[in-house]
């Protein structure tokens, strides 16, 4: 009936998953017991990591702290280990079992085991002995915080991960490219908006940090819209998508999107990628409106012609009298 915790840990290692919460589940088939047993108590944790990259010089020791807290009311034993970080597109990460090969035996966590009272937190000191040959760049370190659960039948483990970025100073090769995706110049759709993405790609060999400014102007919007996207880190070879959209309440519009991505090329200078795209938004309803207007105009023209010709027929006998009246008026004015 027991899903042992260490079986879970081994399985997780095999799967390469890391941060998160483990849930042990037992299902009994053909056992005459109640359909559902009461769930076990929860173990709720939080982890706070430093918000900015930690300056790190090769050959020295870089230090930072993690804060680990127990949000539950019961005491909790917690283990802290380091794991590799798999960097993915759009800033996503996945922790992979085992330490980062570049820092094997170089990461010290004090304490790496602690007992947290209910509703309490502790600081954990993390020190990294940086290899001398580490080239200038940003390095992501991952940490896994695992509560120790002792249960005779069902093991429950909540894991939470933390990320620490080490920044090794020096000249870097930062390059950025960008393009629009999914934004055709003519967008025909029943919706009144067109949306796509700006895909930024780090094509250098170093992590680049960039901010994005998007300006949209066009018709029928009277004012330009202006949006800034906060700075993001983008490791080499990865991409980040920034959503962009235009909409027209009329179902008909003409917009130009100007995008500027500014990145730190060197410490003293920034580089930029400027993009521009014009998009026409057209609701197919307008395909009906235009012929309808033409038909209406033709109908009005035909009707007015008929009315005029009928009028000429009716007025045919009295034309001479009118001419006489007009001449009489002319005489009286003169």
């Amino acid at each position, binding site marked *: *009936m*027991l*899903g042992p915790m260490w*079986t*879970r840990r081994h*399985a997780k290692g095999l*799967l*390469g*998953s*890391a*941060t*998160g*919460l*483990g*849930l*042990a*589940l*037992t*299902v*009994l*088939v*053909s*056992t005459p*017991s109640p*359909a*559902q047993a009461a*769930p*076990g108590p*929860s*173990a*709720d*944790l939080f*982890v706070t*990591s*430093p*918000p*900015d990259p930690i300056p790190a010089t090769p050959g020295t020791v870089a230090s930072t702290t993690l804060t680990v807290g127990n*949000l539950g009311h019961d005491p909790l034993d917690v283990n802290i280990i380091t794991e590799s970080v798999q960097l993915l597109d759009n800033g*996503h*990460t*996945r922790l992979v079992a085992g330490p980062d090969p570049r820092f094997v035996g170089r990461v010290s966590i004090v304490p790496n085991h602690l007992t947290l009272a209910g509703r309490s937190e502790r600081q954990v000191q993390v020190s990294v002995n940086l290899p001398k040959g580490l080239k200038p760049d940003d390095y*992501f370190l991952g940490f896994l915080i695992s509560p120790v659960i002792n*249960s005779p039948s*069902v093991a429950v483990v*909540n894991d*939470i*991960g933390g*990320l620490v970025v080490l920044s090794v100073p020096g000249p870097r090769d930062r390059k950025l490219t960008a393009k629009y995706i999914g934004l055709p110049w003519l967008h025909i759709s029943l919706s009144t908006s067109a949306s796509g993405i700006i895909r930024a790609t780090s094509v250098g060999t170093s992590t680049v940090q960039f901010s994005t400014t998007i300006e949209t102007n066009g018709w029928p919007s009277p004012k*330009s819209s*202006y949006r*800034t996207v906060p700075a993001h*880190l983008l490791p080499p070879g990865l991409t980040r998508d920034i959503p962009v959209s235009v909409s027209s309440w009329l179902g008909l519009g003409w917009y130009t999107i100007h995008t500027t991505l*500014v990145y730190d*090329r060197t*410490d*003293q*200078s*920034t580089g*930029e990628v*400027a993009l521009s795209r014009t998009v026409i938004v057209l609701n197919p309803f307008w395909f009906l409106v235009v012929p309808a207007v033409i038909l209406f105009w033709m109908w009005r023209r035909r009707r007015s012609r008929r009315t005029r010709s009928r009028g000429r027929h009716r007025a045919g006998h009295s034309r001479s009298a009118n001419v006489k009246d007009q001449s009489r008026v002319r005489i009286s004015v003169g």
Partner: protein
Amino acid sequence: MSSPRNRRRRWLSSSIAALLLVAGFIGLTSSQAFAAGTLTNLSWSVNNSQTSKTAVTYSFAFKTATAATLTAVTMTVPAGTAGTVAVGTVYGLGAGTVALAANTITYTVTTPVAVAANIAIYLSFTGLTNTSTAGSYTSVITTQKSGPTTVDTGTTAAVTFGSSSTGVTVKVGQTLTFTNSTPSFSLAVDPSMLNNLQSQAVVLTVQTNAASGYTLAASDTGLSVSSPAFTIPAVSSGPATGVATFPTSGWGASATLTTGGTDGAALAAGLSGAKFVGYPSSPANFLTATGPTGATADTLTLTDQVGVDYTVPDGTYTDTITYVATPTF
């Protein structure tokens, strides 16, 4: 009574006066167009105000007053400010270079572009060393176009530098909280029609201030028994594919999401419309958020469900589901 000649003369003099008035107004307004505008919403801040402190970051923000093709922005700093200035963060202007000379930081735009009026611009510079002379200092920010010609200018509020002052830097850490209301459960099922389908709700909450949000992935080892070896099949290959009808023999989950609405949290495609998905053997995203949750945590209610028929051997089946909450950088 005035004669027609007098009337004509009066009309002529009034017309000339009106023309002069219009000409004067045009002259006045056109001369104003050539004068520098005044920047608005100016601010200057430093992350440490102790005199002679090194590695300080100066941040400047303002809104343009006049539309122009900007080539540079200059910002005065206190006499004695030194250091190796570097570009921090730039919003609202294109790429450029920075230099510190004659108590002025100059950010030169590499490829000048037109900047409209009322556009917010933010510039921060790192690596500066504060002046050694205590006192309150304002900064004059000036935008320039080719020439160089001043476009707009303005003066910020003062920043006080002092040896006895305390430089305050508040760093807000990145926190991820992950809770689970039902971390373990047992279900008893049998193939009879009365008890062949059982489920258990698991409520997970995630709250974070991570600017780029987080992902919540899940995987499992499979709901299986060792003797005889058998695994109850997952209802689908993963969260990308959902099934509307739960199979007679299967293992999976449906999910509902409650969110504060500010973090762009969204469930995987297969979980839409209360469909069931299987847990994959390697982590796959069940939930993705693109921004911080703010005050309201994202609540993911998972309904884990198992169905058995007479093809499923009896025994004690175990599984380990791992939910992976990872901050996005």
